[in-house]
């Protein structure tokens, strides 16, 4: 079979991530291209745009992509995909690819956070996710940034400058606004408030993650991995070092693409394969 390229498309609640990967024999899988688009109201379209953008980036026509695995909340909306897998399975796979030796994955997405415990061979042993409300997820941070009029890229570095973090009571993404407003009214410094916000999320996330055994190495995945303030806050609460790949944001999509590569391989007698739209 001549196909070399496979794609993974991770349709999240805020952003859609797509990657193209290539398996050129002995060298193992290689990341060829990635694309990031806002999910917006039309999930099908976002998935398609993301996928095509990645193809463009890779410089190949879409037809050359032999297999597409969808993941993320919108995975069942990917009409052009071949199959779907949950983001838990994909994140585990992607994290082991990006940071070999990973035994624990902590992922912070827009609406949910999760922790995955991974075996020596990269298999998912155990996982937990937040429930019912978006307390303490990435959205919490986005909202805090919004209220304070700071861009999401700045909040992390700024929070590291905080020397006297404020105490944040709520973990409700909406209520945090009033907490922040009253601290601003009290004249607290932006960096101290942000530091408090980061610590609140870190504590919440770690307390969730403790439900699975946290073994080193620990990889942080998801968009929030780019936020150095969050990385430090998590490390402080965990008392351990986090592995952060430059591609952490694309972990789910990469995991999906790796599965797609496997599916393309005829010799792999897939136990997992299911028709699309199952």
């Amino acid at each position, binding site marked *: 079979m001549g196909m070399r390229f496979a794609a993974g498309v991770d349709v999240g609640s805020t952003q859609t991530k797509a990657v193209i990967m290539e398996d050129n024999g002995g060298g193992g899988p290689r990341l060829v291209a990635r694309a990031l688009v806002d999910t917006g109201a039309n999930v099908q379209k976002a998935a398609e745009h993301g996928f095509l953008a990645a193809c463009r980036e890779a410089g190949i026509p879409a037809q050359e992509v032999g297999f597409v695995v969808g993941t993320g909340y919108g995975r069942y909306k990917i009409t052009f995909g071949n199959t779907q897998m949950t983001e838990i399975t994909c994140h585990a796979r992607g994290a082991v690819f990006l940071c070999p030796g990973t035994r624990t994955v902590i992922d912070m997405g827009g609406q949910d956070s999760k922790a995955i415990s991974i075996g020596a061979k990269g298999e998912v042993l155990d996982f937990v996710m937040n429930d019912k409300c978006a307390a303490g997820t990435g959205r919490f941070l986005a909202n805090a940034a919004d209220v304070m009029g700071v861009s999401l890229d700045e909040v992390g570095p700024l929070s590291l400058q905080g020397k006297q973090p404020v*105490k944040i*009571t709520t973990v409700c993404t909406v209520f945090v606004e009033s907490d922040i407003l*009253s601290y601003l009214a009290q004249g607290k410094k932006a960096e101290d408030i942000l530091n408090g916000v980061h610590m609140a999320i870190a*504590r919440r996330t770690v*307390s969730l993650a*403790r439900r699975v055994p946290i073994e080193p190495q620990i990889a942080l995945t998801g968009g929030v991995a780019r936020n150095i303030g969050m990385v430090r806050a998590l490390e402080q*609460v965990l008392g351990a070092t986090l592995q952060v790949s430059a591609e952490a944001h694309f972990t789910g999509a990469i995991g999906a693409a790796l599965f797609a590569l496997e599916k393309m391989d005829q010799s792999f007698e897939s136990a997992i394969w299911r028709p699309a739209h199952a």
Partner: protein
Amino acid sequence: MHCAELERTFDNCAEIVQDLSLAEVRRWKNEHPGAKAIGYFPVYAPMEIIHACGMLPVGLNGAGDRLDIQYADARFGSFICSIVKTTLEMAMTGHFEPLDGMLFSTICDSARNLCYVIKRNFPQMYVDFLHLPHNPGSPATLEFLRGEYARLQQQLEELGGCRATEEGLRHTIALYNQNRALLRQLYALRAAAPHLLRTWELYTLMRAGNFVAVETHNQWLREAVEELPARTGKPRDSIRVVIEGSFCEQPPLDLIKLMEEAGCYVVDDDFILGRRWFTEDVPMNGDPLTALAESYLNRAVYSSVRHDFRNPRHKALVEKTRRLNAQAVILLIAKFCEPAYFDYVLFKRELESAGIPHLLLEFEEKAFTFERLRSEVETFVESLLFD
């Protein structure tokens, strides 16, 4: 107002209450080498039996906002009250190291499961569960409860390698009768002149007793009873309220203070009920275990976790409110406290038909900002004061 001694006692008590390291318990154990300390969670524990076995009963009322929950959330998920989690967190972070045992009882489903989770995770500790009967009207019940107390006594005797004599039990009962009588006096004093004894003072004085020997606590209480009448102060234009619903998890100290700042005089409450759940003295004659059991059945204070269908709790609340000449009731209920929330339905019905205004407030021991609650209390006071 010049009672320096008294102010010092209150400050000292506040310190003891805030301290999570159980320093007072450690000190007691140092002074009594080899003696054991038994924690109880947090109401209707027969402290007398523990004391009579030569042990220190330690009241467990959670950890407030002084402990970050890092481990317990993983064991007790969403929708479970805070005191269950802070108690487990204290255990999992080594705070209960001075305790040799822990005692739980039938108060609610979460507390009961907590008992067994602790038992599994701390196999070296003596953990026991008391069945407190819900059917006080049956002639069979007294015998059963006496047997249950005897079982506890035997377990403790094995643990401590000691024997509790009838004589010793009677002596203990006398000490605790004194303790409760003094607390009743202080409550009466506050109801008569709430501006002379603030609620947070009474609260910390009472709660500090959770960690010290009853003999010591009696001394503090006696001092307070003697010195308080000398205090002076100007009464404020506040409404007289009864607080109901905080019999287990305790509201943060700042919230208790806030109530008074917002214009309420608290004339009765159910804080730290574990220290004062007999309404009158336990009889000193006859078999002491029978006297204790009979007192649980017939002279124990009502709460949402003690069931006695002969005497409905909602009627008792209205009666108490009228007797103390209170204008309103504040139902101060811990988040996720199912027994209190069930009782709220019948309390509400009864209060409404008696024409007594009430306010339902929800708290969590670990909260530390109270803007919303302050607004609600102020509005409630305003609705009673303005016309």
